């Protein structure tokens, strides 16, 4: 009880918790779930973007895209490392992903159908991710907060690059390219604003996470902030956001927007989205196809070790 009280006091004081510190089991589990889910999202998120590497339209864009997926792999690494400080191995976490016990961000269950999807993911999906993640840079668990600081810096770079690629097409491209951008925005808008999760009144775990300083800002508040920013960015781009009810509310000093189709959200989370099977299938296949490589690396390291010891 002493430990619990001291922990609560530290949280209340805004202190950071380190891996070696005592923490309540529920706090540890909540963080482990959240961080590993975030790590899985980074590596599953490589798939929809990777889909366009071989088809990127210029060498510069190909290089930018390769650098971006490489960064995402790196984010996965930091996050798995942060989660490992909570007592789970990367292999255990991957096993949970492959067997469907762990989730990843549902946004990656949507397909990338055109090149403009790549820019749109940068603008809207990375944009929403940053909104979600910036508050986590002040998360009470220090290893997670540290990883997030680095990740957020790279994510904003990606977001600017994605937006920039759309801007190039909208400002200098052909009518067909502009139509491609508008089409991508039409498809990604609603899934993007669903990324903030269910409305606050239907988000049962939020209160505890807020109390523990894992979560700092509510879903609806973040969503509103995102919508307000996106409206201005869409204007500069010259695209229409696919929501006829989207308009400025002078009283609230914020944008009103249409009703979100939460049934779609739950359908995709539940496994019946457009690409759930493909994404998980690709990850499981990569893991299974690579088993012999991992085994060989271990075997080689073992032999090497034996030789060293014998020497």
């Amino acid at each position: 009880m002493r430990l619990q009280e001291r922990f609560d006091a530290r949280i209340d004081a805004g202190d950071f918790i380190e891996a070696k510190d005592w923490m309540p089991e529920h706090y540890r589990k909540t963080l482990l779930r959240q961080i590993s889910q975030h790590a899985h999202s980074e590596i599953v998120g490589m798939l929809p973007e990777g889909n366009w590497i071989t088809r990127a339209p210029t060498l510069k864009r190909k290089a930018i895209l390769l650098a971006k997926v490489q960064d995402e792999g790196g984010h996965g690494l930091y996050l798995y490392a942060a989660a490992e400080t909570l007592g789970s191995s990367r292999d255990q976490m991957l096993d949970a992903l492959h067997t469907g016990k762990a989730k990843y961000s549902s946004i990656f269950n949507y397909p990338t159908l055109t090149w403009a999807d790549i820019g749109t993911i940068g603008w809207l999906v990375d944009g929403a991710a940053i909104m979600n993640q910036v508050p986590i840079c002040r998360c009470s668990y220090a290893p997670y907060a540290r990883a997030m600081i680095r990740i957020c810096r790279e994510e904003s770079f990606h977001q600017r690059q994605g937006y920039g690629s759309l801007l190039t097409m909208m400002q200098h491209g052909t009518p067909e390219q502009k139509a491609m951008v508008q089409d991508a925005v039409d498809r990604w808008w609603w899934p993007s604003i669903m990324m903030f999760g269910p409305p606050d009144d239907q988000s049962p775990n939020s209160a505890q996470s807020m109390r523990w300083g894992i979560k700092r800002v509510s879903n609806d508040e973040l969503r509103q902030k995102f919508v307000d920013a996106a409206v201005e960015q869409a204007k500069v781009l010259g695209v229409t956001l696919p929501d006829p009810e989207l308009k400025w509310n002078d009283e609230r000093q914020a944008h009103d927007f249409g009703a979100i189709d939460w049934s779609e959200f739950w359908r995709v989370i539940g496994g019946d989205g457009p690409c759930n099977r493909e994404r998980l299938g690709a990850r499981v296949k990569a893991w299974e196809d690579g088993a012999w490589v991992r085994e060989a690396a271990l075997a080689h390291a073992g032999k090497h070790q034996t030789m060293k010891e014998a020497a």
Partner: protein
Amino acid sequence: MTAASIALNLTPATQYLLRIGDTCLILGQRLGEWCGHAPILEEDIAMANIALDFIGQARALLAHAGTLEGAGHDEDQLAFLRNERDYFNLTLVELPRGDFAASVLRNTMVATWLKLLWQRLAADSQDDEVRAIAAKALKEARYHQQHSADWVVRLGDGTAESRRRMEEALSDLWRFSAEMFDTDAVDEAAAAQGIGPRWSELEAPWRAEMTDILREATLEVPADSAFRSDGKRGRHSEHMGFILADMQYLQRAYPGGVW
């Protein structure tokens, strides 16, 4: 930029540079396919990283070849709007990525070859731009060779399964190495003009380094075969057309596009 293919105004110097630049371009293209499908996350990252280096090298070389060609072709016109017969990469790099054994062996063969080539270009080319490109690329090639050769050793001297796969990869890929070293008029002219070495001069050091790597991997150097590939003279394998169909798709389908 229109969708029709560009016609090249080739000189030995530009063709010599395109042979190297296209080899980087197509291997970068193939390595990009690993994204999200590698055996461990570290290798997803490494493959993307190596692919990125190759695309960077290709950009520099294609841009410079375009300048030397003098027809106003930029790196993207050269990368995306040639007909297949005007790409001059080694056939080796256009083969399907295969399994991880094939990929790391190919990377090792190409990186070792490129490292030796960049060394010569960085030291001896009479073309300032080529020397500068080579000096930067040399550092990258050293890392690529080290990283890939480490895997060849691990897999060759790993489990029975990994050894079987490495042997299969050697049997499939080694025969494409002859193309790296046979010499022709392009080579001779490039050497005469001081652009770069005859590739035949790289054969002995390449074999020496590869033999060391394979020895450490406890693998045998395959016997020479009479097989000859000819991608560097624009005669490719049946795989090349499918690579280009994907790679060129957007440039072809959206003529006049700005990206």
